[in-house]
């Protein structure tokens, strides 16, 4: 995880993201790593990917454009997209 992301995501937000992904993909906590692929490693399909996006929008109160889904293939990707849409780091 890159340092500029940690500086923007609070520990609470980061824990929230992990929890959402673990719940939606029905994983054990230690199965999810920063770079494990939702599709290849965790059997996600595009409906579950949209569910992750929808849950983040609802729980974190932000709006994520649908086009960003392509960048949300693992936890690090999700962090980058969330940071981008929190408005704190447009270039991330």
């Amino acid at each position, binding site marked *: 995880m890159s340092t500029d992301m940690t500086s923007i995501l609070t520990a609470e937000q980061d824990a929230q993201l992990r929890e959402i992904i673990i719940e*939606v993909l*029905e994983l054990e906590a230690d199965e999810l790593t920063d770079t494990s692929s939702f599709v290849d490693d965790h059997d996600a399909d595009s*409906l*579950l990917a*949209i*569910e992750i996006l*929808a*849950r983040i*929008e*609802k729980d974190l109160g932000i709006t994520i454009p649908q086009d960003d889904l392509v960048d949300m293939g693992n936890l690090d990707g999700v962090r980058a997209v969330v940071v981008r849409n929190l408005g704190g780091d447009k270039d991330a």
Partner: protein
Amino acid sequence: MSTAAVEALQAPVTHAVEPLAITAVGAATPAGLGLEALGRALAAGRPGHAEPSVQEGESLPPRPIRAVPDLRVTELIGRKGNRHLDRTTRLGLVSCRLALDSLPVPVGSRTGVVLGTSTGSIRSSSEYSLETLHQERPYLVNPSLFPNTVMNCAAGQIAIRHGLKGVNATLAGGHLAGVQALRYARNALRHGHADRLLVSGVEEFCAQSAWGWHQSGALSPDAAVGEGAALLVVEAEDAARSAGRRVLARVLACETGYADRGGLARALASVIGSALGRSGKDPAEVTAVSLGATGLVGLDRIEVRAVRSALGGALPDQVVRVKETVGECFSAGGVLQIAGLLGLWQLENTGAARTAVVPAVSRDGQVGCVVLDLNAPVG
């Protein structure tokens, strides 16, 4: 055009209706899981389980209830991928699994599904709609639950989980769903849209439909709101016999019609008569009736009157009222009427030949009748 030509055009084109064979049954009812549990409860005149699983803070109407006690979801559907399945789909999948497990070999991909419903899961669609009113923004709904709001969800999930690529049909039949699904199945088999069909009816208990029944005034005050599912594995009798599969019963006819409210009894009697006619059975040969309108205000008497009229005055020796055990199961009622008969027949196991009529009648005007038999001489 000459009169003769008109008559020739109007003469119905009929062809032999090949009997369908029922080779397996799965049932999930307030009597428990399996056909035997249903048969035993019916034989003992025992009502089913009366405690529904209710969501927190949910109130239920002050009337009797029947609910399936334990669906054993993890064991019968699997541990993963269940999170989003609503109760309608779970009931469908469990009854399917129970039926398929009773067969010696897996059904192939040229198998189809015909599933009877009325609205799909009314809990799923109405809660989804309610979310759009209660969320901060109306679109903050869960995308993974969206397929549950569509009526063909359960049939689609059955196909996906068992790799069934044949025709996949969902019928909104309500009280007619059983006979309509068998008719649809017979036609699909005849035209080669599948080699065998899983014919199912599903109804879940939920607060929404319980209050709906309660408010509608259509159920007599002492009649229970129930739930359940049954699934019949059906194929052409010839195919089943030549493959050496056990035939639990034959479906000889499944006829339907329509009439205005005032004409329901006559239309039902007429459709029972034509179903017997197409079966090559005389009313005197009928040994059993499995009634469907028990507890429905007005309709229960219409049903009994029509059966009496079609059979020449008296009811047959065996009269089954499956709803006394399972409660009002709406679109699952038709297949449960059949499952109830088969459960009882298996339990009795006398080897005697039997013929049953299974009537169906709806407030909206649809009438129908299935004719079943057992232990008919082969060939």
